């Protein structure tokens, strides 16, 4: 009997956090580069230089791995977005803080944003949405309803709000990451571009 077929997990054994981190990053990279459908535990094990058996110690199955990954990435995004943010802030102040936080996070971790996008468009979307931090959602909703009450923000559907409040910023981040904008025009993000865009966004959303 091959003793490699048994993995002994002692309850007191410390998890190898470096290994887990490496697996995590590799998984995100693979899902972004090759898509969710092509992703398998076997491929990941090879790319991360671990045995498939090792993966199955840490993760129950492929879906467990993907969903836990999503949870972690989402928490990091939520934490970054809420830094120095207060739901009681004025709309323009609060939106500016969010813009700066989200843009900084998106620029620092380009793969995270693409990874989250992959998952949103997958059949795992429902399960993913269940996991979406309730706290983060609540903070976003409270900020918006406060601003609406104070007549600083027009009352519109969520999709309308998001498409104007955040989509422009993410578009600029993408342009910056690609080094070019429309029609191959070279582009680098600057504070001026961010501020000019933010000003128009706020103007559009002000009653």
């Amino acid at each position: 009997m091959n003793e490699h077929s048994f993995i002994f997990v002692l309850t007191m054994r410390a998890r190898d956090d470096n290994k887990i981190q490496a697996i995590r990053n590799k998984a995100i990279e693979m899902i972004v580069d090759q898509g969710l459908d092509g992703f398998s535990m076997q491929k990941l094990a090879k790319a991360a230089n671990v045995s498939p058996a090792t993966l199955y110690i840490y993760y129950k199955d492929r879906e467990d791995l993907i969903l836990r990954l999503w949870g972690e990435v989402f928490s990091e995004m939520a934490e970054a977005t809420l830094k120095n943010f207060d739901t009681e802030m004025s709309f323009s102040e609060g939106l500016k803080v969010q813009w700066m936080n989200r843009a900084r996070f998106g620029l620092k971790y380009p793969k995270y944003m693409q990874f989250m996008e992959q998952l949103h468009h997958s059949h795992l979307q429902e399960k993913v949405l269940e996991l979406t931090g309730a706290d983060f959602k609540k903070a976003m909703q409270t900020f918006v309803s406060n601003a609406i009450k104070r007549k600083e923000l027009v009352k519109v559907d969520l999709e309308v709000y998001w498409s104007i409040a955040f989509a422009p910023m993410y578009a600029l981040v993408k342009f910056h990451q690609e080094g070019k904008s429309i029609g191959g025009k070279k582009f680098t993000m600057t504070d001026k571009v961010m501020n000019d865009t933010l000003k128009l966004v706020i103007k559009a959303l002000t009653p």
Partner: protein
Amino acid sequence: MEVLILKTNIRFKKQVKAVAPLLDSRQNIARWNIDLNDVDKVLRIESKDIQLKEVVQLIHAAGFHCDELAD
């Protein structure tokens, strides 16, 4: 608690349901699951003292094939 990993040819939910009672009835299997979403159809067993032979026999008896997952 040991984690035993085997690849199988159990491909469909119906087939998992067929082997479920056999795995559930074993006292020494604490938890088990089969990853149908992955190419190796991995059977993952959490157990304190189960033998590989025991599991192989069980899976064969149900009409399926299983093998140690190569390192």
